[in-house]
């Protein structure tokens, strides 16, 4: 049968079309930025660019988590509620339990690892479909943080069981989300640091390569002796960790433990990761792609707000951009088949 297939002539693709498909998503980003710079004088100012980066820093953490799950050909939709849980955990450690910085950072991170392990258990051991398993976990984790707080936010001086809660958001913690170093927000520096770490891990080490191999063809990976399940567990744990990091930065930025604060970030994170997936027409989740996807969404939100587009209409535009980016990459002919 193979012999028959090869007889079919392959129509050569025009080089221009090929480039359009390959760099379509990049062109969209550049186009959007150009559009906003022309229509709005304030867009290309340092303070505005800083605002954009600050705004996307938290989403990018979640999007990195989603990216890791995509790399092993899975999907983690629970990152939003993990972020919420981490926010609450950090705020609770500070305000309700009067902990210092170290514990305040450790507890949310452990929560993230816990959620990641639970996701991995459901996907790898119980073998539930990834989307459904993490959807269920999303509900469960959201329920946990709601139950823990009884639906109320955690803030300094709130009424606790034994009178007023005496803990404070300590300055060293607030520095994470609100401080600046050399005029650059710490949150942005953290984001760049972790983007760099994730990039080095996925693209520059053989562990990352094996992770991609597991996602690309799990059976072939197993037949090469690559411990497929370990890598899948690792990916979900990393995803949980990144979501928790997002939660820490979020708690620090707003200075309270908002209930369900991570939920609205989920969709932007998923969109960023998928725009990154489509970028360069590779259909390959990547850290750089995710960062660019995140930037695209941040730029859009910022620019549209400046143009006084109401926030509820912005979702329409976000959705359309996602469709456009994905269309470019999925329309591209799979010539390697």
């Amino acid at each position, binding site marked *: 049968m193979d012999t028959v297939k090869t007889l079919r002539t392959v129509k050569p693709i025009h080089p221009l079309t090929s480039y359009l498909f390959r760099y379509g998503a990049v062109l969209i980003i550049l186009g959007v930025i150009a559009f906003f710079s022309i229509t709005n004088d304030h867009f290309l100012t340092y303070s505005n660019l800083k605002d954009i980066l600050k705004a996307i820093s938290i989403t990018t953490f979640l999007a990195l988590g989603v990216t890791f799950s995509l790399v092993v050909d899975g999907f983690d939709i629970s990152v939003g509620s993990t972020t919420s849980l981490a926010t609450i955990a950090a705020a609770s450690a500070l305000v309700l339990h009067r902990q210092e910085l170290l514990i305040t950072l450790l507890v949310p991170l452990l929560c993230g690892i816990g959620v990641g392990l639970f996701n991995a258990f459901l996907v790898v051991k119980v073998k539930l479909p990834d989307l459904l398993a993490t959807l269920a976990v999303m509900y469960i984790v959201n329920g946990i943080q709601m139950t823990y707080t009884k639906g109320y936010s955690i803030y300094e001086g709130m009424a606790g069981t034994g009178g007023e809660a005496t803990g404070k958001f300590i300055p060293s913690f607030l520095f994470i989300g609100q401080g600046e170093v050399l005029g650059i927000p710490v949150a942005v520096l953290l984001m760049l640091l972790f983007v760099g770490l994730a990039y080095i891990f996925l693209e520059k*080490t053989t562990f990352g390569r094996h992770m991609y191999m597991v996602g690309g063809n799990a059976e072939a990976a197993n*037949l090469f002796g690559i*411990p497929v399940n370990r890598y899948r567990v690792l990916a979900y744990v990393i995803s949980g960790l990144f979501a928790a990091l997002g939660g820490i930065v979020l708690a620090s930025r707003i200075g309270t433990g908002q209930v369900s604060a991570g939920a609205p970030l989920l969709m932007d994170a998923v969109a960023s990761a998928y725009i990154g997936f489509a970028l360069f027409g590779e259909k390959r989740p990547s850290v750089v792609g995710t960062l660019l996807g995140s930037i695209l969404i941040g730029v859009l939100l910022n620019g549209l707000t400046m143009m006084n587009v109401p926030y509820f209409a912005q979702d329409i535009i976000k959705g359309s951009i996602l469709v456009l980016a994905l269309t470019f990459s999925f329309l591209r002919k799979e010539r390697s088949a």
Partner: protein
Amino acid sequence: MTLTLLDISHDFGDLPVLHQVTFSVKPGEVHALLGMNGAGKSTLLHIAAGVYQPVRGTINIDGERVLFRSTSDANAHGVVFLTQEVDRGLVPQLAVHENLTIGHLRQEKAIWFSKSANRARARALLQEYGLDLNVDLPVKELSLYEKQMLSIIRAVSNQARYLLLDEPTASLDRLQAVKFYELVQKLQLQGLGIVLISHKLHEIMACCQQITVLRGGVTVMERSVDNNLKLEDIIEAMTGGAKGIARRVVKDGEQQPVQLAVRTTGNRSDDLGIKFEIRKGEIVTLFGLLGSGKTELAETLFGLHDAYTAVIEGKQVTIRNTRQAVEQGFAFIPEERGRHGVWKKDDIRTHLALSFRGMIHVSKELAYSQERIRSFAIRPDSPTYRVGRLSGGNQQKVAIAKWFAKPRKIAIFDEPMKGIDVSARETIFQMIESLAAEGTSILYLTAEPEEALRISDRVWTLVDGQIVSEIEAHALTMDALMLTADKEVQRNGHR
């Protein structure tokens, strides 16, 4: 009432497959189509079934010319082709009775569908052909044998007049094969014409009235089965005489140490039920027909199934999973190269450097890849070329080369020449030989006698997952090989 393929010639591009072959099957006749792989049997069957249109030649039924543009054209003329993949025509989620009567339901064009009436109809059909099956079972829960029987009964109940069967008993056990041939006989008595491809020659001798042997796309033997027909004659016609003898140079008496030994351990749970020894640098071929359990054995050795104990270089080790197998020095080149052996979207360099550890040094990997690409003669010779775009032969070279960034003790090749053109074959054989020369023990699994002859130091014949005989290379000829494999199957069958 005869289905005749007249003067059929066919080719795939430059590759001629059939040359003026005439073949016919009468009603009430079981006609065996025999030949080595690549002789053109399957192609001829595909033409008869309307899958391919022949380049030259015609198909006649009762002397009247018919044109099969598709399988449904052939079906309309009562010609039904059952491939080895029996799942193809069945709907896995639907129950047996729904699958069985799908053709009737379509003809009736009824809007209301009575399950109970349909069940009764299905039960009657199954009973008529002696298949004991719960009609409410979804088809996905049936065994391969049951699916096969179901497909045949369905074809017959839809007024099929000619059945084309491609290696129907390959994956069946003995009892199932016996039952299968009972059904064939019954259909034959009902007046169906049946064409059968099989490599199990004794089965052919027992149930067919007519045989046709193809070799290299031409008919070399066409006769009825009678007492004068000997198995040896058929094999000679298939192989073209004793031309094939072992081609690998037999090494002198120097004995290498045993590299891998698997022993039966009695009643323990990690017992493989098989025992053998392979020496360092030795190429042992495990020769077995389709359905002999080759792939299962290879997968078990590589740790894909239950844990087992082996002795590697004198040390006893237990292998529970593929990771441990690789740690113990195993390499595995799986049969389904495209699905299991390579990553089509990744480039050659990624494959070759797969067993590297730590940080990725692109320049180092590129240099290494270039050196490997040269020594394994991979074309095109660019490390950044996507493996999915390589030819089958070059994909296989990559699938093999990806293992040997470091020396391996044992390499298992499962049908490595499947779908690989002649010119690449020789390169791959040389690759395997040079690996053996470097001290890797090779376990080569194949159903092709030519390959066994080309590469082996020793040949083991595998039947029903058991090694039943061993032939040293100097005693090896193609006819001997075919005869042993078949005799053993036969002997097992009568035990």
